């Protein structure tokens, strides 16, 4: 029976998904490795193999290096910011509050909107004479005022902050779902044993929230490394090139017609993301098996 039933599930139902996924996602990634080593240009018919030249150029071009540094800063800042805030919000909104559902909906709502919408709304607010600086002045913290989008030394941090503002609610919702799967009995037992709030958070909440923490770390990290739209709309990579990230540099190379170079940058991103995420993935799968 077992053998027969196995052959019943013929692979032909896998084919359509496999075909679409392979043609439009996997094949481009694979040929990307080849095109990374060519001088492929929009305005030239011939494509020649040029060895490591594109990669040499990436590692000697200041703008490209800055873009990689900015991408890492953005990823690290948003991973920490989104997850710390989201856990705090989730724990607070898991308490018996009167306006709990209202607050959950409010904090979640920006994450369903387009990054484009949020970025355009924040543009006038972040100007030197904008709402955010005016607010600091009103509450007597005028020294906190910054040229948020025009000061090259802080602009990538500003973009990261806008992203945290928008997406923390999404992470919060995953943490809330995780919290709801934790049995109340653990907390009751801990209270009887005399454990305070902080102790039960460290010894009960955090360990049992691990699946949600894993998935959120992975989602925010991968999303952070792939950042594009926030920078594209808020700053366009500027002022100068101060806020360029890998995603916007690829678009620039594409626009300039340097398709080989653009593909090489993309391949590099592919390798970086994979190297960082695979250990996380293996860790998660091992945990699944252990269960």
């Amino acid at each position, binding site marked *: 029976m077992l053998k027969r039933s196995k052959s019943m599930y013929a692979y032909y139902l896998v084919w359509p998904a496999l075909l679409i996924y392979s043609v439009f996602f996997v094949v481009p*990634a694979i040929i990307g490795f080849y095109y990374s080593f060519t001088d492929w240009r929009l305005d030239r018919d011939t494509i020649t193999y040029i060895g490591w030249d594109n990669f040499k150029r990436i590692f000697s071009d200041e703008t490209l290096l800055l873009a990689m540094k900015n991408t890492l800063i953005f990823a690290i800042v948003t991973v920490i910011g989104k997850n710390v805030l989201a856990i705090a919000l989730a724990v607070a909104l898991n308490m018996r509050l009167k306006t709990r559902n209202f607050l959950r909906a409010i904090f979640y709502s920006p994450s369903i909107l387009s990054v484009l919408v949020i970025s355009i709304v924040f543009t006038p*607010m972040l100007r030197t004479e904008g709402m955010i600086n005016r607010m600091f002045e009103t509450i007597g913290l005028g020294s906190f005022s910054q040229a948020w989008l025009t000061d090259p030394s802080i602009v990538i941090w500003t973009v990261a902050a806008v992203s945290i503002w928008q997406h923390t609610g999404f992470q919060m919702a*995953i943490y809330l779902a995780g919290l709801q799967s934790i049995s109340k009995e653990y907390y009751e037992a801990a209270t009887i044993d005399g454990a305070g709030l902080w102790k039960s958070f460290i010894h009960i909440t955090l360990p049992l929230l691990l699946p949600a923490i894993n998935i959120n770390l992975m989602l925010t990290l991968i999303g952070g490394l792939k950042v594009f739209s926030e920078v594209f709309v808020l700053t366009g990579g500027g002022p100068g090139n101060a806020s360029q990230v890998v995603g916007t540099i690829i678009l620039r190379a594409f626009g300039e017609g340097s398709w080989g170079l653009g593909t090489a940058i993309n391949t590099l991103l592919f390798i970086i993301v994979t190297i960082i995420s695979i250990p996380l993935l293996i860790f998660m799968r091992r945990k699944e098996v252990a269960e």
Partner: protein
Amino acid sequence: MIFKRKLALRNYAVEIFLLIASLAIILPLLMMIFGSFMTSAEVTKFTIRLPDKWLFSNYVKVFQEGGLGRAFLNGIVITGVSSILNIVTSSAAAFILARRESKLSSYLYLFFFMGLIAPMSTITTIRVVQWMGFYGSVTSVIFIYAALNTAFSMFLYSGFIKSIPKVLDEVAFLEGANLFSVFFRIITPLIVPVNATVAIMVFMSVWNDITIPLYFLTDSSTWTMPLSVYNFYGKYSRDWNLIFADLVMTSLPVLILYLFAQKYIVSGLTAGAVKG
């Protein structure tokens, strides 16, 4: 008793703090909504207050001058067709991979799962689409979105299908049903809630996306909302009332979807949180 009162006091303190914090979310959104009804002189102060007069005509104007009607329909077509394509293909594939507990099927699952991690290779995707002869078309974008969302959908489906007892299909097979009818008559009705979750998740990500249209939709008559709004934003950068009206129109479909389909979003998030 004292303990209980202390607890209640703590809850009040947390609640008040959160209500104040929620202003940080509410105020920028209110600025956009109120601003979309103001005159262009009134809106440039960028303060949060009710408009002197509610100008609904701003919305009429963005539809006429910004070509939003066209973009809205393009968005509906691209989002709708790619969601359906994604749902049908991913659920069928996930069904087979979840039922066959072989080495090959788990490798295939991993192969699909890589799509959740790896960034897409944009410029070479253009190359592939050019080879196939439909670069710049709506069709190419539909297939690309279906491909990009395959990994996530398969992840949701396979978790759910594994919880459906295999006996159900086996009985049907014994009665002479073929694989096709087992999938469409037995499995499909049972996975309706997941279909809803996947449909909403795909709809939201595709509707809101600006990257793919930027690279793949070369003709402005095929643009979706975010790209045409971005273009409008560049052109009318003085008329913030119109820009805000544009942004509200872009957000409305996902907001409505969110209000009506909240429980399906939550169930999708729960799958991620609990299964990791």
